[in-house]
């Protein structure tokens, strides 16, 4: 008379658990590495054939040499450190504000119909467009750049959070209220956990918006940072340096996704049983 004991596994206590890397995962990783080797190899060969001048189409090894050079001179480390610090600060502020705003829009009809459309509109504004305003308000300062990063983050997270709350099945809230959840308990034990898969997606998207807007802002105005290093390379007409910095920017973005946000998303999806049931670790 029991249902099917399809999953009679031993008891598990962990809260959020990631899938363990399996054979398929290693295979996936191997294919990725092989592809990159081929890509960089092909690039190297093409550049060395001499169809174009090397200062316009540098070889992959030229780019690596430039990377090594800027790393040794300390320029890369200083730029990377400055950019990551700004990113963490701006994203942190944006996350807190975005969650607050999103919760408010998700739970209040008035906030949704007023702030909701404003947030949606501002989300469509490329956040580097805030830079002139920020420069007038805050002058040529760190605050101006942080402001742009916050603006890039906050609306993405707010809109994702309020959407996730609106999509929560009505019967969940009824069931929770029926079982005695009210006020803060309802927020803490129903609204937030029910919206977490959507919030995790918003956090990931907010992060990539923050990273883009930071680099853009640093390119327009900054004395240090990866965006600044890019423009510095352009002024020297040093294309290998420009490409090296581009590689670093891609690497930081990928690392954040693979090590933090992608993992968070997969862990939440598996726990909640939403999305792809067989959600895999990003390789």
């Amino acid at each position, binding site marked *: 008379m029991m249902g099917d004991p399809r999953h009679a596994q031993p008891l598990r*206590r962990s809260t959020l658990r990631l899938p363990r890397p399996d054979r398929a995962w290693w295979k996936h990783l191997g294919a990725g590495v092989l592809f990159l080797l081929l890509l960089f190899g092909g690039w190297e060969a093409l550049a060395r054939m001499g169809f174009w001048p090397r200062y316009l189409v540098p070889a992959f090894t030229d780019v690596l040499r430039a990377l090594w050079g800027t790393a040794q001179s300390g320029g890369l480390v200083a730029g990377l450190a400055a950019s990551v610090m700004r990113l963490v600060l701006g994203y942190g502020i944006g996350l807190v504000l975005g969650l607050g705003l999103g919760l408010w829009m998700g739970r209040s009809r008035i906030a949704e119909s007023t702030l909701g459309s404003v947030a949606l509109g501002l989300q469509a504004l490329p956040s580097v467009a805030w830079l002139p305003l920020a420069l007038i308000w805050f002058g040529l300062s760190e605050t101006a750049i942080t402001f742009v990063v916050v603006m890039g983050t906050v609306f993405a997270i707010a809109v994702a959070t309020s959407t996730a709350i609106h999509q929560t099945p009505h019967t969940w809230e*009824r069931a929770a*209220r029926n079982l*005695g959840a009210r006020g803060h308990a309802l927020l803490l*034990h129903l609204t937030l956990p029910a919206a977490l898969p959507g919030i995790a997606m918003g956090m990931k998207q907010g992060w990539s918006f923050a990273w883009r807007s930071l680099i853009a802002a640093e390119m327009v105005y900054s004395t240090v940072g990866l965006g600044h290093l890019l423009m510095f390379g352009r002024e020297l007409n040093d294309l290998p340096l420009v490409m090296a910095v581009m590689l670093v920017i891609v690497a930081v973005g990928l690392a954040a996704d693979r090590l933090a946000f992608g993992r968070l998303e997969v862990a939440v999806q598996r726990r909640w049983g939403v999305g792809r049931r067989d959600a895999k670790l990003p390789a």
Partner: protein
Amino acid sequence: MTEPRVELRQVSKTYDTQQGHTLALRDVSLRVMPGEIVTILGPSGCGKSTLLNLVAGFEPPEEGEVLIDGQPVESPAPDRLVMFQEGALFPWLRVHDNVAFGLRMQGVGKAERRAQAMEQLKTVGLEQFSHHLLHELSVGMRQRVALARALVMHPRVLLMDEPFAALDAQTRDGLHATLQELWASAGTTTLFVTHNIREAACLGDRVLVMSPRPGTIVAEREVHAERPRHIEDDPVMQVARSLRQELHAAVEAAA
């Protein structure tokens, strides 16, 4: 004479829809005595779920009164628990934490609510699955969890909104058996809504037949067959046959 556990006095309820006002319930009066199991049988869209929502306190009636032990219903509360068709369990919680949700909201300590949840899970045969996640369970097992989550609160009345409609016949029979065992041991007063004629006859001490649009009670039938009953027992089938005629007459009259 004892007071009814649940009483509806001339309750009416309309809904605003795009077509204008729709009368969902008209002049519905009913009584459920303590320990009694009443099934409400009606076609889809006859307002049976609306009736449960009123008793649960999710919505107020427009006219008439809804009383629990003589007190008017004002808001949802854990003494009137609904078991939803789709279970409405919380996927971020493990099975035992789902069952303990209501206890947690009442401020019961962790060890105590864990113990009570495990006890209740035993009564539905799921104690081995207490640490599972919901998507690891079958639909039938999930409805058992939902039943445990409601019964662990010892509600004054259990409100069941077509909870077995999505189950295959075999799984549903298993749940009918478990439910009847629990009624025998706990004596929980129950209002059970269904569109399945044989299910209504099998589970109810009394069956109320509702007509569609506007929903109103058109027939009442006591079922005296001995418990535990199976949905294909002869006495159950006999009651179901006469209920079928009454239901058809009600639908015809409404059309």
